[in-house]
């Protein structure tokens, strides 16, 4: 069952990447971390170790918390990447608009 869940999550992630909704180059370390965590969480020994490191009494919750932290990190990275792209897009549009207006000013000055 655990394996099916991991496969499903991995498939969903790949689908997001395929549809260009996730920037894999920027989120790759986090993405890889999530996949490794998914597989590692199938091991009881790893779950107990993570729970003891994080001082969490209920062992499975440790995995859930780590996954949530990684997902938040992914969202943050994506938001930053999106913002940077938006700024670049705006700069390009401003540059193009300025060029168009410059041509009109030059034409008007000639006339």
């Amino acid at each position, binding site marked *: 069952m655990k394996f099916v869940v991991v496969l499903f999550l991995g498939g969903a992630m790949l689908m997001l990447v395929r549809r260009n909704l996730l920037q894999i180059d920027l989120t790759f370390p986090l993405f890889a971390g999530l996949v490794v965590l998914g597989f590692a969480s199938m091991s009881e020994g790893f779950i107990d170790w993570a729970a003891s490191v994080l001082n969490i009494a209920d062992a499975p919750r440790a995995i859930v918390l780590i996954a949530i932290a990684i997902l938040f990190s992914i969202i943050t990275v994506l938001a930053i990447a999106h913002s940077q792209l938006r*700024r670049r897009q*705006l700069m390009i*549009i*401003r540059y193009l*608009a*300025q060029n*168009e*207006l*410059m041509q*009109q*000013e030059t034409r*008007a*000055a000639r*006339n």
Partner: protein
Amino acid sequence: MAEEAGSPPDPSAPSILVMIPTYNDFELLGDIVKSIRAELPNSTVLVINDGSDEPIFRNDIGDECLLVGLKMNMGLGLCMHVAFDHFLRYDYDVLARVDSDGQHPVGSLTKLVQPILQGKASYVVGCRSNRNESRSMRAYLARFVRGYMAFIVSTVTRGWSPEDITSGFIAADRKTVQHLNRQYLERYPEPQMSLAVGRQKLPVESIEIEQLDRAHGVSTITVGQALRFLYRFNINVLAVLMQKGTTR
């Protein structure tokens, strides 16, 4: 600068750039441009088509206008930056804004730019004396939001803000344009601009205007967009508060 054929420009006259941002609202554009030319004959009119569904044709607005068309709707903030860039590049003295929906009284443009030309103010806002007259539910909500934003801006700038911070009928001098162009203006930038000007302690003046009824089209601000507008405003205020004082 673009000047109308047959009317030689007066080199000593201050150069005024009047921007008209428009989004699917150009039924009245030709008339507005004509009115501006009649009110401020030495001005240059810049029409910015913010990704409207239909293109604007030269014939509709006249050859003497500057016209730039954005390929997609990017919001008023970007339109302001496009106008700022052009204003600064061509050394205009005053920038004024008139909306394309016909609600701004173009006949008050001279009154709007006068305080800047006289050196009394750097940023002038047309304060709508009839902005609270409507009795609809939407109008009450808009009044509440406007009141909230005006209170916050006034508090943050310690009273150094125009009375009507959401009015788009504005004029600015070079120093103000330079300062505003350093900001990252959002989709509905008027409160953000008032905040930036107020924090910089630039001289602000308000003039009374009578907002005209919308003759064509509908407001682009839906309830959902109003909530996003409010969200952006609050985030912007927090960002401004985190900055170190004024940079005057």
